[in-house]
């Protein structure tokens, strides 16, 4: 009998030591999670404590809260933060209002074939470039463009500005709201709707008392997408926002134009912080299980 090869011995050793086997399997993804993902977040927070020497342009790696002090004391950052929050909230509310009936139609009314087509129709815009869609909206919202025409003539529409930003962001993120709600509604048994009707509940009543409470987690799951995506956006607002600026613009301007990465990092912690608060708040609702 020949002696087992090193490889054979290794594989049988691994078989006996399942812990090592598991570690071997998971090390790559865990490395990714901790180094690439959490690591970069950590770097963000640490670099927010640094400053830039305005004379040499070099990073000064001495911890200071100067950046945060600026953000907290300068009124403009408060204004922009509140505006960004307002935009994110408005986009979320609009998307919920549009997505609810659309998802309901898809999940409960449309035929199985129509349902498939609708899902594709909703996913298709996601394949198109974000920029192309934003520019298309710029043309639609232009003076004398289709949107103006809808409002009855040149200059009657919203033009470029905060309203346009909310409108276009709502359009861009709508699929991210429809899909979780659709998934939630698909899981809602038809018999519950029939039971409600059977017990005397008309459409509105059934929706309020049965459908809505049951898909709240789905709505919240969708809102996490629409809210965080809106909070981080800086391109749409540049294209259709007129002179509006949101947190994302400030972050971008400080990296791009001012070469002030630490200040950008400090600004970027604002949306991170808001999302953490938001996620903690919705954790109880069970919405995180819908993701």
């Amino acid at each position, binding site marked *: 009998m020949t002696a087992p090869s090193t490889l054979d011995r290794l594989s049988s050793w691994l078989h006996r030591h399942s812990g090592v086997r598991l570690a071997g399997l998971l090390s790559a993804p865990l490395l990714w999670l901790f180094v690439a993902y959490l690591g970069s977040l950590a770097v963000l927070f640490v670099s927010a404590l640094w400053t830039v020497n305005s004379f040499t342009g070099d990073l000064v790696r001495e911890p200071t809260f100067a950046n945060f002090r600026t953000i907290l004391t300068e009124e403009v950052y408060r204004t922009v933060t509140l505006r960004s929050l307002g935009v994110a909230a408005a986009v979320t509310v609009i998307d919920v209002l549009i997505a609810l009936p659309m998802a309901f139609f898809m999940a409960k009314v449309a035929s199985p074939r129509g349902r498939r087509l609708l899902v594709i129709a909703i996913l298709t815009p996601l394949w198109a470039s974000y920029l192309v869609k934003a520019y298309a909206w710029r043309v639609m919202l232009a003076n004398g463009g289709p949107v103006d025409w809808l409002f009855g003539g040149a200059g009657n529409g919203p033009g470029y500005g905060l309203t346009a930003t909310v409108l276009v962001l709502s359009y861009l993120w709508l699929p991210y709201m429809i899909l979780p709600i659709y998934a939630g509604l698909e899981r809602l*048994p038809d018999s519950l709707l*029939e039971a409600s*009707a*059977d*017990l005397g509940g008309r459409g509105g*009543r059934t929706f309020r008392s049965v459908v809505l409470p049951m898909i709240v987690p789905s709505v919240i799951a969708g809102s996490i997408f629409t809210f965080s995506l809106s909070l981080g956006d800086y391109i749409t607002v540049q294209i259709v926002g007129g002179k509006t600026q949101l947190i994302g613009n400030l972050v971008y301007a400080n990296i791009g134009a001012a070469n002030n990465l630490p200040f950008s990092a400090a600004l970027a912690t604002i949306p991170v912080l808001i999302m953490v608060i938001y996620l903690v708040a919705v954790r109880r609702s069970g919405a995180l299980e819908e993701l």
Partner: protein
Amino acid sequence: MSEPAIRLTGLRKSFDAVEAVAGIDLDIADGEFFSMLGPSGSGKTTVLRMIAGFELPTAGTVTLAGRDVTRLAPFDRDVNTVFQDYALFPHMTVQQNVEYGLRVRKVARAERRERAAAALRTVRLEGYGERRPSALSGGQRQRVALARALVNRPAVLLLDEPFGALDLKLREEMQVELKAIQREVGITFVFVTHDQQEALTMSDRVAVFNQGRIEQVDTPAEVYERPGTPFVAGFVGTSNLFEGETAHAVLGREGVFSVRPEKIRLGGAPASAEEISAAGQVVEVIYAGAATRFVVDLDAGPRVVAMQQNHQTSPADVAALRGKPIRLTWRAEHVVAVPVSPR
């Protein structure tokens, strides 16, 4: 005579090309416990859903207590349904589930409480009001569904295979209970099931469905003892059917005839005016606890099943009969002529 609780006239329903219900005329009396029995796909559930208002008939009318409700929505009909999957609202407590119908109809809070409590008492679930449906067993959920429907005091209660998900023991208990509740509340129950035993034990009358039509409507005893069609004879209980040549050879008569297995005795005297007798060979002996089933190939041709209560015999005794020749005897009055077309 007063109006029937439910009257179905020329009721039809097609899904695309498939005709699920192919023309039904039926009267169900007030206070009756009425069962719709049939294999799956026979159209019984569709008929129930048309009575409830979940499906619109392709043709025909549904009349509830003299009022044509064919085109009315479920919430405009004085009927309530107990669903096969119970359809309890998972985000509401038992109490809220039961009160739902009353709340929708804007019944005052105090009355709601009282009636819900009474309904829960009826189904023996007092003290469960604050629980969520997910914290209840299958039988308990079933009762909550029942209470939720009954609390509205509908003229008609529709039950769509309500015991389908329960195990046999619980199912038998619930059958007894449901019958008791029906007697207590005195309203019309329309009960859909594919379980002939269930239909026979509980119902005042049974309608046997097959391929979108009713084959027979009668009392359980009549349906069992006098099957209206070969299908009924075969679907409700087990039947030995004799037709054509075998009918001639064994019974000496022309037509289609049914003899129930439990009416056939093993052994016995040769044929007389009152008794029919046939020789054959035991092919299989199946022990079934309280009784034993014998599968016998008659010399005259057909294969029949005979059933014998295990009064005195032991499993070993009966098993020994396998492969042996045997004589079977049954009374002439137990040979039931089965009409070939529905009555």
